[in-house]
């Protein structure tokens, strides 16, 4: 199943905001969920709660060097930031953004730009789980701690954490209970192997 892309359009201009989000929503092939931020002073907080993949922002509202500091501020290092150009803008400013959309772009051009932006991400999420990751899922489901998993598989605790993060992002599953369903349905594990951990509860 293709993951939906979360796009946020931030601009105080009602016309630009509603216009762009309508264009995004109509592109069913893009599969985008769109939210709007009208109040720029509230942008960081809203981004933190929405956690979008892509932010389309009025270029006049975000300074030339602000992309990096915004990503750091909201702790989303991989957020794609797209400049919305409604005026002549210095090329050096545009270079700081991951892409740019002009007021005169057709909706096809806009879609292509967003698709291209998301391509690397999508490829990554299509990757199958590695054997190691499957082993780690079984350990997690059995109720083992990161330390115990590290000892059993002869890995550092840090590596186990990295594997767990990758598993969470590949499967979009962020809880042990969710991994248990995944492991049972995909026959990575039998119920009697985990009886102890699931009957006792946490």
């Amino acid at each position, binding site marked *: *199943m293709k993951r939906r892309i979360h796009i946020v359009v931030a601009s*105080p*201009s*009602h016309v630009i905001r*509603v216009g762009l989000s309508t264009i995004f929503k109509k592109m069913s092939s893009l599969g985008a969920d769109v*939210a*709007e931020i*009208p*109040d*720029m002073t*509230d942008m960081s907080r809203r981004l933190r*709660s929405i956690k979008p993949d892509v932010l389309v922002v*009025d270029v*006049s*509202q975000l300074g030339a060097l602000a992309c990096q500091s915004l990503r750091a501020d909201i702790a989303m290092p991989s957020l794609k930031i797209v400049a919305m150009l*409604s*005026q*002549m803008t210095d090329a050096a400013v545009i270079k700081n953004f991951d892409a740019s959309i002009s007021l005169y772009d057709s909706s096809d051009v806009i879609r292509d730009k967003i698709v291209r932006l998301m391509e690397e991400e999508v490829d990554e999420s299509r990757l199958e789980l590695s054997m190691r990751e499957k082993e780690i899922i079984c350990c997690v489901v059995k109720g083992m701690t990161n330390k115990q998993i590290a000892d059993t598989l002869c890995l550092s605790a840090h590596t186990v954490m990295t594997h767990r993060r990758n598993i969470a992002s590949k499967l*979009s*599953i*962020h*809880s042990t*209970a*969710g991994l*248990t*369903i*995944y492991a*049972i*349905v*995909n026959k990575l594990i039998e*119920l009697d192997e985990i009886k102890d951990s*699931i009957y006792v*509860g*946490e």
Partner: protein
Amino acid sequence: MSNFTSEIDFNPQYIKETMYSTGRYSYEDTMSSLICENPSMLLVLSRFAITLGQGDKTIDEVCVAHGVDTYTFLSVVNLLVTDTLPDDQNKVLPLSLLKYLEKSHEYFISYRLPDIRRKLSDALCDTTAVISKVIMDYFDEYVKGVKEHMGYEETVVFPYVRKICGDDTELNKYHIDIFKDHHDNIDELLSELKDIIIKYYPAGINFSMSDALFDIYSCSEDLALHAKVEDMLLVPAVKNIELSHKR
């Protein structure tokens, strides 16, 4: 070129007007038009304990008759329907919001989640006992988390809000920022269960499964909106009161 844009981009009055120009409801709109145009607002009515059958009475008339603060009611409605904040957050009454939020908790814990549990359990009749068990375990653990989350709000946050809204000016150790920083999204794990079932559920989909999944979907949306009312209306209103006490 720059003269043209600067006036629009940096004039705060302009920004303010554009925020409030679309589809917002006001005192003079009829309650029936609000509900007919936005059926999901039925939930808001029941949480403010407002009854149906109000004919063509305005929102203000209905609120006054039910002892509900109209400004607070409209702030909730406009946040949920148009995703906009009230012009003056000082006018939102925390005590009115608390009544709404407590009713909302009661709805999720005593009605909505048990109802979904029943449907989900029925829907799992076509699969093996093992798969049915791990899915129900997920759901039960999720509900446990929701109860803890809402229990914390009811035993710590809401009493604190009531205290500072009263004349109690003694120093409080608690602070609404503590809540703000630790307020997790409880809707996500519910929505994740739906996604896991959609992606990996091995048995065929029966009527009750599609029904259960749809209910999970709408309930997680509803939980997200519930959290939004807490984050965007309750927290700023309480913060204002904290500031006024400091002065």
